[in-house]
């Protein structure tokens, strides 16, 4: 019961999608698979809410049990509710509700959430510089190849660097684009894409056939 039902569900839904691929969209099985896709967008939405519930629970219990840093956790909880509650109230009550421009939701997103996300990511620039200095060494033939390619590509991607490369004989920028990016790099990416596609397909096959059950967890 606990594993059989899920395995059957996965099998039926998977096989319908596979078979429908070989038939016209207007056929019966085409319609059926379309319905399943619509269902998936609904069930998939709930999966995202699962994460929100998890975070709320973890923070809530942290505050209740006065775990270290519980004061900060209150801030997290307040922020969750400040964002969530006005957004699900109907716009007809007040233009501050809902998700449209001018709502609390939109204001918080544009002025707090979005710039913070950008800032978090931007700190990476500093790390990449220190990595370049410390870690990026010509330790072996392979790492030397990596190093040289990286340096030249870095130069090529900025106007000032490209101007430098153009001072050297030969058309280095166009060589880089055609033979390095569109040649060697492209070929490797293609090999990796084919390999990864086979991996994903094999995983999918095993899920449909119920051989792969790790996603269910144990027990």
């Amino acid at each position, binding site marked *: 019961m606990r594993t059989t039902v899920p395995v059957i569900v996965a099998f039926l839904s998977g096989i319908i999608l596979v078979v429908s691929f070989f038939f016209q969209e207007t056929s019966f099985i085409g319609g059926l698979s379309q319905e399943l896709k619509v269902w998936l967008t609904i069930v998939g939405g709930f999966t995202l809410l699962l994460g929100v519930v998890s975070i709320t629970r973890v923070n809530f219990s942290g505050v209740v049990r006065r775990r270290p840093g519980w004061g900060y956790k209150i801030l997290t909880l307040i*922020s969750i509710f400040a964002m969530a509650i006005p957004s699900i109230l109907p716009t007809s009550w007040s233009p501050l509700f809902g998700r449209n421009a001018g709502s609390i939701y939109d204001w918080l997103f544009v002025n707090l959430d979005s710039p913070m996300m950008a800032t978090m990511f931007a700190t990476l620039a500093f790390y990449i510089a220190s990595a370049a200095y410390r870690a990026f060494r010509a330790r072996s033939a392979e790492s030397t190849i990596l190093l040289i390619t990286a340096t030249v590509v870095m130069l090529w991607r900025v106007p000032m660097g490209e101007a430098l490369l153009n001072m050297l004989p030969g058309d280095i920028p166009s060589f880089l684009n055609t033979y390095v990016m569109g040649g060697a790099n492209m070929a490797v990416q293609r090999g990796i894409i084919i390999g990864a596609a086979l991996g994903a397909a094999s995983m999918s096959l095993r899920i449909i056939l119920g051989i792969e059950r790790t996603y269910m967890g144990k027990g």
Partner: protein
Amino acid sequence: MTGIEIFQTWLIAFFTLALFSFLYKDNPVYKIAEHIFAGLSAGYYVGLIWDTVIIQQLWTPMTVDGRWWLIVPGVMGFLMFTRFWKKITWVSRIPLAFVMGVTAGIFLISQLHGLVLPQMRDTMLPLWNTQGYGQLFLTIIIVVGVISTLIYFYFSKEHTGALGVTAKVGIWFIMISFGAHFGYTVMGRVSLLIGRVQFLIEDWIGSFT
């Protein structure tokens, strides 16, 4: 700038600098920003899913268009939450299996049909043509690169003899590609920093005057 705009600009500047302060050292201001950030990001999902999924995809079609059978995915969605009760956790496997099954069905086909076939076909390039040596050189690079990368990730035989040589060529190609990745990525990370600096200089410091 109006008062509210100045307030907004200062607010963004405060949180931007608060998060950057971690580069120096972990500190309470950073922690405040970090926790607010985590909460807002989680809260964003609620409004979005409530509106676009529960109302637009589920409630309205069921009540207005009479598509009552959507109750099935609706119930499956709620069953996801059984994960939070230890005794009935297993029930949440049913909607999970549905998600995994449909996704796997689409994947199995699209990976083989949409990626493997076209990528194979586009590698079948003539080694002899009239477009000159440059083109010939490029073709050789592509064919050798693809084959040797595939061989490098072939695990069923020891990499000795001809297979070993090909795999060795493969690793050189792979390193060129990773170098290109590194060079490119530097640009990406720096761009994001530039984005923040553009804000700080043009909007925030600009608001002083």
